[in-house]
Each structure stands twice: as structure tokens, then as C-alpha cells.
């Protein structure tokens, strides 16, 4: 079980800020494919991975990073702080 979180326009497209996801995905990419297969709103949110960033347990990661031992996955657009 993973906590999956969404921020900014990713959150708006998915329609919720977080959810619990039951998955056997080995990598972030596999998780994204599972989510996209679910419903059009996921398809819309994950259409262009180059426009997205991912954090695993609150650390920035790559989309090919393994999910073993991870509890919290977050998807969001590039940050615009400062």
C-alpha cells in the first residue's frame, strides 16, 4: 500500500490531493502505467511525464526509481517557489 499525493495542476486533474493505492508496481513508471489504465483523469494528468516531477518519501526521484520500501509517492509539476 502506498500513499500517493498530487499537487498543483496534477491534483486538479486527478481531482483529489491524496489516495491510498494497492499496487505491486516495482518502479514509479510502472505505478504511473497502472494509474493511467484506471481512468481518463489519470491519463490526462500523466500524459507528459517530462512536465512532471516525482518525490519518494519526500525526496525528489527519477521515474525509473524502484518503489521497494517506499511509503509515500508524490507527483507534481516543476516547482515555482521563491
Amino acid at each position, binding site marked *: 500500500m502506498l500513499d500517493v499525493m498530487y499537487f*498543483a495542476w496534477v491534483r486538479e486533474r486527478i481531482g483529489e490531493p491524496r489516495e491510498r493505492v494497492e499496487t505491486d508496481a516495482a518502479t514509479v513508471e510502472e505505478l504511473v502505467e497502472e494509474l493511467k489504465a484506471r481512468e481518463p483523469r489519470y491519463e490526462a494528468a500523466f500524459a507528459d511525464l517530462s512536465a512532471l516531477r516525482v*518525490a519518494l518519501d*519526500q525526496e525528489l526521484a527519477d521515474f525509473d526509481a524502484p518503489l521497494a520500501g517506499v511509503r509515500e509517492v508524490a507527483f507534481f*509539476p516543476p516547482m*515555482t517557489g*521563491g
Partner: protein
Amino acid sequence: MPVVRVQSEPFSLGDEAEAFAKGRTDAGGLVTFTGVVRDTGGLARMEIEHYPGMTEKAIAGMVDTAMARWDLADALVIHRHGTLAPGDRIMMVATASRHRVAAFEAAEFLMDYLKSRAPFWKKEFGPDGAAWVAAKDEDEDALSRW
């Protein structure tokens, strides 16, 4: 001791700068940077979303790096989230160092990392509706100098 604050409340630039400088005889140079919401084309308000938990951790990591790399005497980062209006102060950074060049560089380093590596997202509400602020290539490129 460096301080990091992520808050929705306004902060006083004057009070923070004064408190940061107070009693300091160890550092010859203090630099502050303050980010202000600009009134661009009738902006009504801005909403800043962030990732509680990761935000504080990410900023603390940047501050640790800056403290070590520039041998800073002290550092401060304040960043707001929530609703802001034109003229409101979004964030501030302060650095204290024996040498002016180190204080400037460390403040610029922190700004560059806050822009692109701290999990904040800005949404602008104006006459044409709402839009998420897009990240700029130049902000990402700015990281390469460090």
C-alpha cells in the same frame, strides 16, 4: 543557528532583518533577499500551494549545504504559502558571513534552489482567470552554476 519557517502568516521584513542582525559581531556582512508579489497585468491574488513535510526538509537541506559551503555564521529562510496579494512579501532569505562575497553567493544559492527545488507552486488569479505559474528554463539553468 539557522532558522527555516514555512508559514501562511505575513512576516515583517524589518523585524526579521533586525532580529537576524542583532548582537552580531562575528559576521561583517549580512545579505537579505525579499520576494514581493508583483502587480503584473491586474493580478488580483496569488495562491501558493506546498508539500508540508517535504518543504521544510528540502529547505533545511539547502540551508545545511549553504552553511557548510560558505562557512556562514547564520542563515534564515521564511517562505509563505496560502493567499497573497500584490505587494505582499512571499519569502525572505538572510545570510551572515565574515566576507561579503560569501554572504552574497550563499543568498543567491538559496534563492536559486528555493525557486526550483522547494515544493511550492504558485497559481495566479487575474482578469483572465486562474493559471498555474510555469517554471522557467532559466531558473532550472541557474542551478548549474553551483
